[in-house]
């Protein structure tokens, strides 16, 4: 092992009663194997015993040490600190009440998660009695979801809708549908089939990207939609309202809000597609208004129109036309992607489809711009 180097850890600090959170910077020695969790433990041990953090199993099995490192949701216990640059920022999860420093209250998370009706551990099948020769697929397992909350922290919809059921709970609901094990799949389907349920998801897929155990909540939500849209009609279940059991507020909620909808930093391609879709959508609305304004010129007679046509042939205007074409193409093609992915048909290919959409957009854009330039000259 090489000799330790030093990293500056910029740590989010907040205690109840503080007017606002702030950051403290600690210098910590780091070897190639040092994890973010080990560094935080060392800070608490050697520099500041008041630093609050959560941890338990130290091997990505319990889901307790979820936090954000340089803006990305991770489990601190399996996140190496080396090779991240000289300053690393550590913050608590978002979209959850903040108890203090890096600790959030998991109460609201569990309040929704347990409503999904998923048995917390798979039904049992004793090996001693069954002795199956090919038993390896059939034996008892713990569920793969670690209940760490990373997916909820990163979700742009959870950032704006406090009643949103969220990726973890809906992934749990999908498991009830897939593998009921004595539970009622119709109830799970009725529960997600609502305003704050699976239809609210905007398919940014960051939940699946940050999931430390490959649960793929985004794909689960798409699968729920597919089942609801195309599957056997579910028998009318009890009216499923989005409710959060009344829990006493434990701290500031730190919901990210609309900022999450336009900020793709540190995110994967699904999130970039989500943000680009929103930006191009907004731009097209602005264009529509502009277009109506231009059409108004027609009413002023041929002279005004000719004047406009001259303007429209200027290089600046042509560049804006190119930008418009990009917006139309991307928004339209990505709309097709969203439809395919959102109804579950291609949820597992959402990344590939994004690149296909981008490539097709650029090819058509090039062709369009070439035609435009040719028409002008």
């Amino acid at each position: 092992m090489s000799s330790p180097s030093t990293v500056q850890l910029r740590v989010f600090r907040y205690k109840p009663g503080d007017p606002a959170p702030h950051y403290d910077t600690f210098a910590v020695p780091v070897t190639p194997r040092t994890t973010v969790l080990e560094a935080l433990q060392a800070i608490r041990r050697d520099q500041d015993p008041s630093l609050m953090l959560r941890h338990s199993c130290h091997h990505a099995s319990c889901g307790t040490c979820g936090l954000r490192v340089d803006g990305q949701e991770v489990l601190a216990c399996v996140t190496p600190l080396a090779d991240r640059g000289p300053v690393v920022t550590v913050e608590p999860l978002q979209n959850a009440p903040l108890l203090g420093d890096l600790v959030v209250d998991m109460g609201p998370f569990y309040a929704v998660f347990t409503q999904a009706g998923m048995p917390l551990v798979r039904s049992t099948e004793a090996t001693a009695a069954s002795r199956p020769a090919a038993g390896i697929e059939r034996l008892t397992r713990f569920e793969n979801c670690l209940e760490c909350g990373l997916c909820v922290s990163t979700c742009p919809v959870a950032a704006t809708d406090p009643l949103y059921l969220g990726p973890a709970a809906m992934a749990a609901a999908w498991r009830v549908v897939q593998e009921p094990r004595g539970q009622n799949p119709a109830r799970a389907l009725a529960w997600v089939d609502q305003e704050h349920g699976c239809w609210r998801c905007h398919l940014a897929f960051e939940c699946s990207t940050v999931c430390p155990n490959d649960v793929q909540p985004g794909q689960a939500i798409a699968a729920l939609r597919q089942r609801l849209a195309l599957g056997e009609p579910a028998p009318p279940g009890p009216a499923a309202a989005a409710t959060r059991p009344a829990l006493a507020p434990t701290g500031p909620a730190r919901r990210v809000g609309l900022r999450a909808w336009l900020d793709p930093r540190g995110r994967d391609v699904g999130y970039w597609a989500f943000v680009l879709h929103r930006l191009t959508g907004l731009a097209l609305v602005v264009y529509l208004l502009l277009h109506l304004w231009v059409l108004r010129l027609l009413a002023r007679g041929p002279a005004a129109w000719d004047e406009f046509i001259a303007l429209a042939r200027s290089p600046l205007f042509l560049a804006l036309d190119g930008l418009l074409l990009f917006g139309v193409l991307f928004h339209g093609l990505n709309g097709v992607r969203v439809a395919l992915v959102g109804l579950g048909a291609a949820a597992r290919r959402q990344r590939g489809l994004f690149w296909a959409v981008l490539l097709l957009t650029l090819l058509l854009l090039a062709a369009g711009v070439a035609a435009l330039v040719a028409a002008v000259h």
Partner: protein
Amino acid sequence: MSAYHVVIIGGGATGAALAHDLTLRGVQVTLVERGEVTSGTTGRHHGLLHSGARYAVKDPESARECIQENQILRRIAPGSFELNDGLFVALTDEDLAYYDDFMEGCANTGIPTRTLSRDEALRLEPNLNPDLKLAVQVPDGTMDAMRLPLRFLATAKHNGARVHPFHQVTGLVFQGRTVAGVQVRDHRRGRDFTIAADLVVNAAGPWAEHVARMAGVDVPVVPSPGVLVAVRGRWTNMVINRLHRAGDGDIVVPQRTLSVIGTSSWVVDDPDHLDVPEEHIRLMYEKGAEMIPALARAPMRAAWAAARPLVGSRQAQSGRELSRTFKVFDHAAEGVEGFVTIVGGKATTARIMAEVTADLVVRKLGLDAPCRTREVVLLPHTAYYT
């Protein structure tokens, strides 16, 4: 509910089970933990629900505790364990020579066994080393190291216990030679205060000696870390042990989508300084691969260390020579009243540790309240948060 109030120091498996036990006996309980609950040794253990077979030959007392608790826990915490059983595999003639002692030890301590031929074992677990001679099936199981103690805490909380994570004990409150409470620092609100108690229980695991010193008494606890390595992939469904005298890297526990190889054993002075020596990681890979060859190429997910709170002399060399059983100390014997320490044991035996400790506690308080934790089914872990 009686008027008596007991403060428990330590939010690990022992403190959690004790909070549950005392609450059921009608005692008011406040549990304080300096960090998050289960953040010390408890959360970091192997995730093995012991059958006791590992200790059947050399440590029969611990083996008996394990098998009894194994059966009780399956009853009171359904859903917390995989009923996947364990295999002890013999790979060498030396291992085979241990077979008779092993079977005798299991029979004497009440651990059910079933001997499997090489072919039978490979049919159950195709990834085992094909050179194995035979295997013995025992009722080991996979458990979730954090969520079982959370169930004790959840049930205790719903029965009225107060659980305070991020509250560090900074000293004890004395009335003469009697401990009458604890001084705590609340790391969330940054304030210091005292909690009065009729009795204080030190359940701080490897930190028990540190806490005992606040009372001016001594507890023979040896913090004995072990390295564990989690690799990606679930290479077996059963818990795999080597059929030999307990040693390094001879247990592989499948846990969700991982396989956890452990452990090594040495002794340290300060359980807050736990290194993960590179050579121990290599040793885990090497020893694990002797039983399951595919482990040699499995990518590593994490390597970590946890400090066992073993009861024994500080002259211990590696910790392997010390029993895995537990011990309750009534410090009245050293002239300090109102202060009890519980150390040693295993996650599997946390409930019986709590029962024996609570028996002493209620006796000292003059209460007549029998233990009920053998029957009461625990709430799910999620109830701890909601």
